């Protein structure tokens, strides 16, 4: 047993260094991908360019990064603090509508321009993308606390059900928000479109400036990773983990449960809001009907599949699932249909495949693709160190007497 523990102790000591390695890897890969799309792909033969457009279009990459941002937020709530949230789409929607309100001609009665690159003659509120990001974060944090305050008193399953409710209510408010006593909150199912282009150093990023948006989204995802890792290693992160491990013991050690859970919820909501704003600029509009329950579930699948509690695992999970969802499956479907001369609508089987994938993961790799080291230990302890656990069990039986 001492050998086992020593080995685990040693691997733990290396953890900070490995975080640095991962961070460097992430940045290197991000730059490499950027160079690949901007400088290399245009000089390749047309056939290769077509292949890239079919299998790895840059727009899908950007969308995947938006998913990464949201999934990293959900990871704080679910992975760190252990609060099961099935309504994360609510924050995505609120963030999206923040962009719709403050970055478009939607409020045409008002003519307010600040830091935006759009023409001054356009009516509506046009704020800089960066200010809207901040606003989205603040508004989502506010709603996170508003929703969290009454619900976080509930335990596990009940919390999941109530968050599920909020995840349904908020998009419905936007779907039906065309006429709230004469006030148009959301333009209903028609949505808000177009949303202003992002302004970057005096340049307006149009729908085809994908490489610049890519940089912005990578920066945002990187920021979320940084925030996650910093918070995790500090006072608050320890309290989150303690609550995940043993809520009662945590409260007995002076950790205020409500406040700590609320902060996890609020930080998660903030990143949901950032993702919402980013998504609105990515698709150039907000459409109420897109904010479906499935988004919450896909985000949760990303966190679980990637490796709960490990930011890098969550990132890999999010990129993978987002790619399968947006590109991989349709492209593979077309390939199969044209090869075998069949006519199967592959994208309609998305959830069948995700469901199957999750079941397989739960059967064979419960800890996710890149698990948090501590989680991996629990799920596999019965594999190799049963003898390690046995004495504990005997003692707890004695204690029960």
């Amino acid at each position: 047993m001492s050998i086992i523990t020593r080995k685990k102790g040693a691997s733990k000591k290396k953890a900070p260094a490995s975080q640095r390695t991962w961070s460097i890897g992430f940045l290197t890969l991000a730059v490499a991908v950027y160079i690949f799309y901007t400088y290399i792909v245009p000089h390749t033969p047309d056939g290769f360019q077509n292949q890239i457009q079919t299998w790895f279009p840059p727009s899908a990459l950007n969308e995947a990064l938006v998913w990464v941002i949201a999934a990293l937020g959900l990871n704080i709530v679910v992975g760190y603090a252990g609060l099961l949230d099935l309504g994360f789409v609510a924050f995505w929607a609120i963030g999206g509508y923040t962009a719709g309100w403050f970055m478009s001609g939607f409020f045409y009665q008002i003519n307010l321009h600040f830091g935006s690159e759009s023409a001054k003659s356009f009516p509506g509120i046009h704020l800089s993308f960066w200010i809207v990001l901040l606003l989205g974060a603040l508004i989502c944090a506010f709603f996170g606390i508003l929703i969290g305050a009454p619900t976080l008193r509930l335990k596990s399953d009940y919390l999941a059900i109530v968050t599920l409710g909020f995840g349904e209510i908020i998009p419905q408010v936007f779907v039906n928000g065309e006429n709230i006593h004469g006030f148009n909150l959301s333009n209903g199912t028609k949505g808000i479109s177009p949303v202003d282009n992002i302004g970057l150093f005096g340049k307006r990023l149009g729908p085809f400036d994908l490489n610049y948006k890519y940089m912005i989204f990578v920066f945002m995802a990187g920021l979320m990773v940084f925030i996650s890792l910093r918070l995790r290693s500090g006072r608050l992160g320890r309290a989150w983990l303690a609550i995940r491990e043993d809520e009662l013991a945590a409260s007995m050690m002076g950790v205020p449960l409500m406040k700590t859970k609320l902060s996890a919820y609020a930080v998660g909501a903030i990143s949901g809001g950032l993702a919402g704003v980013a998504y609105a600029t990515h698709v150039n509009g907000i459409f109420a009907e897109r904010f479906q329950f499935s988004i919450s579930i896909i985000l949760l699948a990303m966190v679980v599949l990637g490796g709960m509690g490990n930011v890098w695992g969550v990132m890999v999970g999010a990129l993978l699932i987002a790619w399968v969802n947006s590109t991989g499956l349709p492209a593979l479907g077309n390939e199969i249909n044209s090869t075998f001369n069949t006519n199967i609508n592959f994208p309609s089987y998305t959830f069948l495949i995700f469901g199957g994938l999750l079941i397989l993961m739960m059967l064979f790799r419960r800890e996710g693709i890149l698990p948090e080291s501590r989680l991996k230990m629990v799920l596999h302890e019965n594999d190799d160190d049963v003898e390690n656990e046995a004495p504990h069990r005997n003692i707890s039986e004695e204690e029960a007497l």
Partner: protein
Amino acid sequence: MALDSAPVLEAKNISVEFGGLKAVEDVSFDIPDRSVVSLIGPNGAGKTTFFNVLTGLYKPTSGFVIYNGEDITGVVPHKIAEKGVARTFQNIRLFGLMTAEENVMVAMHSHLKAGIIGTIIGSPLQRREEREAREEARALLTFVGIGKTAMEFARNLSYGDQRRLEVARALALRPKVLLLDEPTAGMNPQESAVFVDFVHKVRDEKNLAILLIEHDMSVVMKVSERITVLDRGMKIAEGSPADIKSNPRVIEAYLGKSAEVNK
């Protein structure tokens, strides 16, 4: 003897009912500053319930808890912990998937000030605070004798070390009162003997009062300055170990029975 010093924690006429079942009935009790006192009684006597009242987990049906002259009845557990009433658990309740050091640092939560922003940007204040907290945690782990296990996950520690870690974690609250709920459960006689010295060391070096719930009579008799006996929720005796040993009611209610069980 510290028994004549002013009480740091006082329970006045505490009763706890669970839907008509009286778990604790009109128990008054005090813990003098820097004393070591014990609470004993047969299983189901209401000892742990009483503990849970002192730490805010249960609100008593009637009665008051006074800490340092302040009424803390019904105050939420984390506030009571913050004020300086720390405890360990009968069934060890560590944060298994956190390192020993992190476990101790969790209990420093209320002493640390870093907020979300300060933590993210890593302000000089936050960094210094973290460094000092880490040093304090290491010092506490060394104090309880498990300094070498700082980076190991709590669930991987041996049983005795887990017990010690619980004490280190409780001490991180900088308590004035430490409540130990059956700390020697599962220990062998040698370990229990070492534990007696350990309790006195904690009391003397950390300047606090200790209340023990304990089943092991040899430990109780050696470690306690005063013993209180509960039976069926009621206080039936209180006094020095020698008094308790010869008290017929106690022998009838507890010791006699216990001796049979131990066979």
